């Protein structure tokens, strides 16, 4: 069994209106040192072992559904765990 942590973020070239609003809010809370905030998504997947390579499976899942390659990038971490 694998625990997979997936991080989806907006591409750098894409403006992040939410991140911008949070940056402004932090400035008004008197944190002028905060230069930028980018908001993304974090997902945890539990995937059972199969004949297929885990990286192949995760990359497929991410590019098909979890991230939209037009505006988003993704990265992930895989951890092998013992089924409970």
């Amino acid at each position, binding site marked *: 069994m694998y625990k997979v942590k997936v991080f989806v973020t907006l591409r750098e070239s894409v*403006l992040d*209106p*939410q991140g911008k*609003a949070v940056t402004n809010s932090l400035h008004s809370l008197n944190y002028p040192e905060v230069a930028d905030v980018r908001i993304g998504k974090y997902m945890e997947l539990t995937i059972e072992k199969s004949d297929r390579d885990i990286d192949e499976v995760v990359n497929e899942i991410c590019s098909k559904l979890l991230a*939209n390659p*037009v*505006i988003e990038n993704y990265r992930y971490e895989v951890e092998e765990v013992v089924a409970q």
Partner: protein
Amino acid sequence: MKFAVIVFPGSNCDIDMYHAIKDELGEEVEYVWHDTESLEEYDGILLPGGFSYGDYLRSGAIARFSRVMQEVVKAANDGKPVLGVCNGFQILLESGLLPGAMRRNESLSFICKPVQLKVENNQTMFTGEYELGQTITIPVAHGEGNYYCDKDTLARLKANNQIVFTYEQNPNGSLENIAGIINEKGNVLGMMPHPERAVDELLGSADGLKMFQSIVKTWREAHVVKA
């Protein structure tokens, strides 16, 4: 002409779309559930607005994998008119039938108001009844209508005259004021504003009706043999 209004869990403009076609346009129309396995009997496909699958993950991301979407792609490949409005546009983007993606509105607010659109291309099966450069009034209602595509895609959209509607005053931060685009083949149109909500003067504008009339006119010219 017989239209299908595709209904996903969470669609909420399906009834407006049905009303526009049946009562204002006077053509045949049926609701079609998202697990339908054939659209053979329909001449035009309408993807309505709403919040399909609760907008989970991204707007349109999950609807794009529903069974009926395979048939929508088929209908598009067959050259049938496919119109996606609001969430329907987002689903067309996610499915790759149209290029680009939607971001949250620049203001982060949900925007719901009538807007002025400029008709940038009236040489399509959706806009033949409009004048080129005409200003029309159509309402928008969305939180994620901030259109984005990369530079190469934008250049292609411009070169092929695929930008069909632009906002006179940009409400959401959309790239180049884009409100609606069409595919290269010219039979798949996506737009954020709701033409189905502007089909009678009682609603504040009847400018949207011409879009549906354009579709029917093009279809009749191609399919109805003159006696």
